[in-house]
């Protein structure tokens, strides 16, 4: 079982590592939203996504995020690519740029391929953003950030502390469960299970040998944890203090301004491309290429 599936935290001391987790969380959400904005035609979409890819790539380099673990995370997208290709190829659609006409009723368009590529690029960028957050931020810091964002809900008596405890426990137990899964997989491999071989049914059968023991172990662990917390008098509804307090420095402010600047530019581009008629002509003129 790979432990870096969502970007394991790596203890470097980069600028990105040192940023306030609340800022990183905000930037993640904001960048994810702008990746999914509409940008009119495909030329505009790919130009904006290309620029965002460069920016996100640069952040990955500065944050010393492992590109190999990023590419390994993408390997699980293959099934989705195949599914999307099948879906796009065999569902008749209308487009402007035909590739091949099978008969009068069905024509394959470049638009189908571009649509698949567009979905994939957006997903890849989303994965990259998540990996940047998890590789450069301690799980507990992510929880603190989330807890801070939930604070206003306390006004309506929402039990934010219970939510943040649940999230922090879930994050805390990810490495433990991955280790457990690894141990079970090794034990099953020693009994002749090959997790890489076989087709659908064989895979399901071999995964069963992992899932059942893992669930048994999870339930037993959660029981033990609940008892241990109760034994130490834990009350989720009591006011709690923190050992670590988050501080928003001037560096965080600069980073926030940069992120807001990028986001505003992309949002403006998105609004212009979908509302101003003749905007494509201006873009055509600027890029010097024909848009599709």
């Amino acid at each position, binding site marked *: 079982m790979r432990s870096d599936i969502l970007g394991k935290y790596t203890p470097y001391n980069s600028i990105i590592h040192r940023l306030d987790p609340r800022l990183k969380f905000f930037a993640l959400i904001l960048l994810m939203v702008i990746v999914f904005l509409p940008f009119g035609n495909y030329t505009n979409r790919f130009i904006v996504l290309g620029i965002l890819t460069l920016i996100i790539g640069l952040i990955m380099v500065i944050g010393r995020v*492992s590109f*190999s673990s990023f590419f390994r995370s993408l390997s699980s997208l293959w099934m989705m690519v195949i599914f999307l290709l099948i879906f796009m190829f065999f569902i008749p659609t209308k487009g402007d740029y035909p590739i091949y006409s099978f008969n009068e009723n069905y024509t394959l368009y470049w638009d189908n391929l571009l649509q698949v590529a567009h979905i994939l690029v957006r997903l890849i960028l989303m994965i990259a953003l998540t990996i940047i957050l998890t590789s450069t931020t301690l799980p507990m810091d992510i929880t603190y950030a989330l807890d801070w964002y939930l604070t206003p809900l306390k006004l309506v008596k929402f039990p934010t502390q219970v939510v943040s405890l649940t999230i922090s426990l879930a994050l805390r137990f990810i490495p433990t469960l991955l280790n457990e899964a690894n141990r079970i997989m090794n*034990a099953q491999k*020693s009994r*002749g299970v090959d997790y890489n071989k076989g087709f659908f049914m064989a895979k399901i059968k071999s995964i069963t040998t992992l899932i059942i023991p893992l669930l048994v172990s999870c339930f037993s662990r959660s029981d033990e944890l609940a008892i241990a917390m109760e034994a130490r008098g834990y009350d989720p509804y009591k006011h709690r203090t923190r050992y670590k307090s988050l501080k928003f420095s001037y560096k965080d402010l600069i980073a926030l301004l940069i992120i807001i600047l990028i986001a505003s530019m992309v949002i403006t581009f998105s609004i212009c491309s979908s509302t101003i008629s003749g905007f494509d002509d201006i873009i055509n003129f600027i890029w010097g290429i024909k848009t599709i």
Partner: protein
Amino acid sequence: MSMIEFHHVSFVYNKKDPNRYDAINDINFNIEENDFVALVGKTGSGKSTLIQTLNGLLLPSKGYTKVKDFIVTGDKEIIKKLVKEKKYKKTELKNFSKLRKEVGMVFQFPEYQLFSETVLKDVMFGPKNFGFKEKEAEEKAKECLKKVGLDASYFNRSPFELSGGEKRRVAIAGIIASNPSILVLDEPTVGLDPNGRKEILDLVKKIHQEGTTIIIVTHDMETVMNYANKVIVLKDSKYLGMMKPSELFNKDDIETYSLEVPPFYKFKRYLKEYGYKKDISEANDLASLINILSEEK
């Protein structure tokens, strides 16, 4: 010829990461057929990593592990050399299913690997994966369950309703049912009461007497003293030596190995410290020590 050979075996976790950790470093030793070897060393010395190179669960970053005719290595230069010399095909160096049949491995808390609806089915799972026919696997499973002390009344019970010790015995039966010639146990008695511990260790001893080579990873020096015929010491990822248990426990500088001396050897030390003059170094069990002491009287 030795049954198991470690040739300059090193293994690094998180190689390209700030969390890089050299778990084992340049390990060289051999284990003979039908040995009962205990692998000792403090936590983090590399014991569990080393045994996982025995059936290809981990591939040495440098050097290689040889088990019978199987080679386990992740060292590209060694692979290249072996393929070039036509000693092995590349696919043979990447496929470990035959090796895993030869090397049975029992991990810590093996009861967590149980998943089938009945005890019998769970024990049959390994042999079936290794190519035993249904009938053959069933017979072997029943034989092994009896060997670990679980009679026919257990066969159709769910493994999840058994006690901790019983679950562990089912898990061990599941490994020995595949007929391995080498049995590797990683702290098999962790979390068991003294009786349960003795039962498991006596069972391992019985399996050894039937001709299986045993490698046991343990922190319990009583186990080393009472069951193993050789002991291998690892410290800080390095191999310190292989010797008889009595030889290790009689060493004056045993503290440098970060090992706990069994009470029997502590008692011998006290005798020496309190001025007992007669040579008691040859006494390696309570009976022989009593003999020497009574002769004196």
